[in-house]
């Protein structure tokens, strides 16, 4: 149907009005750029969240304060209860002990949030996770310890701390501050280990970005807060691979302990991923839909220009028909021109969004990820836009009567 000659002709006539072609493509370029950038941001966010969850092992179950999600009959998560995130912790150290004693549980550790401020020899930070936990945390962590090691049963009586890689940088200005002192609420803690950096980021499902975490022994944490605890979550390591059984056991035990008031949530890692991914996904879709409007505008501008082009080139159409072009051949000519405009626009859009992604990675904490399916989809959509919006002008051109077209009417 389309010969290489047709495409050459189309390129020639687009080149002849270069500036106008560029302006026409601008709508498509902006549309594709914004859609691709937003989708890749969402995709990047999902991957970051996924990465964070992998900081813990897949055999780890998380018990959260408050009933965060409602479940349907099949046990799938129906909705997220936002207010539950705001309540004070409903979990206690007794809960940790109860869970730890269950037969299907290998270990249970509290994540007791103490403060967000700490001071080191080279500086201080007010945006950290200072958390009390037990030595068993070392088993749950899927993360390598780069320098030193985690505190063990013997050393956990002392004032020691295990810190994340960015904490090391912020407080000490070096990558291996083992043996130095970090000051938390006036007390000194000796750095015992430094975690390897992870692809952590902003939104943390584990409610902890391990890069900016400072783990201290639970007893020391309780001393700092005068016995009060603020347990964000209890991480539970299952003995067997039957996670569902473990979840069931933990749930039953806690429900009994909390006097049948379900003010806690037992979540598997995959469920956490789904909640976070689902939220990010729906926000991404929403913003993409808004961005897609600009694609529509781009399409309309293509139609506009094609319409003008058909009117301007009436005589050319007449000449082509006089020397034997069929309606179909004229139609194809304009369809090719329209879709060429949008393909090139789409490709430029992808290139621009790749550049934007690179800049975002360089200058912000965001890590957008462009995947091949997104790019293919962008090209397909822009071709579709080009063809759809060229049809009307191309039909107009094709249906001109040769004699009228030759007279330039």
């Amino acid at each position, binding site marked *: 149907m389309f010969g290489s000659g047709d495409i050459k002709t189309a390129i020639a006539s687009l080149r002849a009005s270069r500036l106008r072609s560029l302006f026409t493509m601008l709508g498509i370029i902006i549309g594709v750029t914004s859609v691709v950038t937003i989708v890749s941001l969402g995709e990047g966010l999902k991957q970051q969240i996924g990465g964070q969850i992998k900081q813990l092992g897949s055999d780890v179950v998380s018990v959260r304060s408050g009933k965060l999600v409602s479940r349907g009959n099949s046990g799938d998560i129906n909705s997220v209860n936002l207010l539950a995130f705001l309540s004070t912790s409903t979990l206690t150290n007794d809960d940790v002990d109860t869970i730890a004693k269950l037969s299907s549980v290998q270990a249970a550790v509290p994540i007791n949030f103490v403060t967000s401020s700490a001071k080191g020899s080279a500086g201080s930070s007010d945006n950290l996770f200072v958390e009390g936990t037990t030595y068993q945390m070392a088993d749950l962590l899927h993360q390598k310890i780069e320098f030193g090691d985690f505190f063990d049963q013997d050393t956990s009586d002392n004032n020691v701390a295990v810190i994340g890689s960015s904490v090391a940088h912020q407080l000490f200005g070096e990558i291996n501050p083992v043996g130095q002192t970090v000051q938390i609420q006036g007390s000194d803690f000796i750095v015992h280990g430094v975690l390897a950096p992870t692809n952590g980021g902003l939104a943390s499902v584990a409610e902890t970005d391990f890069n900016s975490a400072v783990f201290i022994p639970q007893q020391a944490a309780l001393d700092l807060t005068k016995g009060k605890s603020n347990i964000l979550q209890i991480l539970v390591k299952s003995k067997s691979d039957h996670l569902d059984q473990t979840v069931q056991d933990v749930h039953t035990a806690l429900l009994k302990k909390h006097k049948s008031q379900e003010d806690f949530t037992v979540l598997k890692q995959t469920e956490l991923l789904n909640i976070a991914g689902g939220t990010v996904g729906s926000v991404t879709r929403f913003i993409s839909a808004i961005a897609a409007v600009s694609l529509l505008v781009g399409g309309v501008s293509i139609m506009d220009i094609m319409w003008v082009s058909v009117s301007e080139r009436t005589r050319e159409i007449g000449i*082509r028909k006089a020397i034997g*072009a069929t*309606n179909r051949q004229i139609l194809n000519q304009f369809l090719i021109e329209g879709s060429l405009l949008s393909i090139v626009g789409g490709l430029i859009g992808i290139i621009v969004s790749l550049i934007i992604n690179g800049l975002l990675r360089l200058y912000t904490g965001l890590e957008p990820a462009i995947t091949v399916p997104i790019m293919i989809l962008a090209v397909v959509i822009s071709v579709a836009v080009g063809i759809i919006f060229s049809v009307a002008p191309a039909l107009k051109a094709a249906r001109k009567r040769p004699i009228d077209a030759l007279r330039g009417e």
Partner: protein
Amino acid sequence: MALIEIKEVSKLFGFGDAATLALDEVSLAVEKGEFIAVMGPSGCGKSTLMNIIGTLDKPTYGSYLLDGRHASRFKSTRQARLRRDRIGFVFQSFNLLPRLNVLDNVALPLAYRGASTVRRRKQASDMLEVVGLREREYFYPGQLSQGQVQRVAIARALINKPSIIIADEPTGNLDSIDSRVVMELFSDIHRQGNTVLLVTHNPELTRYAARVIYMQDGRIIGDERTQIGDIAKGARVSHYRKHKKTDEDIVAGVSALMGKIPAKELQGQPKKTKSRGRKRALSRKSKK
């Protein structure tokens, strides 16, 4: 059976009170291999007749048979193929595509036939050789003289080896030397057995034709067979007859013919041709 048979063809433009009768029950038969010159004042329907023969336009009434078939009733695609394969057009205003180079312009009808690029270029190049412009293959129409542009247009008309050449005032924008070159080309085409229909204002050009048709007010008023090489007798007669009508006809656009009496034509003043074109345009407007 005649190659072209026009039977009582009428053509109306516009509607109601504004309707003009461009052709008034014209009948004409053209045999294969004829060289016909069509003469007549502006607005007499010459071009309309040619457009109908070339299937660019459809008659309002009457029938047009090409090879015994009702070409005017073909579907648009079949008409397009007919124009592509059987008919070559040469226009007064050349009608080349300015954005394509000479070679691609000539090759365009082949492209619509679906020929490969290599074959297209080769054939177009050969055709340009025929009109003596092979060394200008990669020029653009804007870089050539008008005479050369018209020769390119003729090459384009011939590329698909059509049997009918329709030339609507092909020398109207050319000076006398270019006109002669172009007319010699048509003469060659005719000698190869093709049918040539030539619309002209210039009685001098009837030398090339074997048959001259005179038109006025949408009718054929004369049909004269002449010897090739001689100026048709009617050509002069029709001139002087128009001349007598004076003022009214000048307004009506017949003045166009006056500017072209043979003596002046031989001097070959390009300015004259220009002003003639303008008057014609004016007169066409005033007629509508």
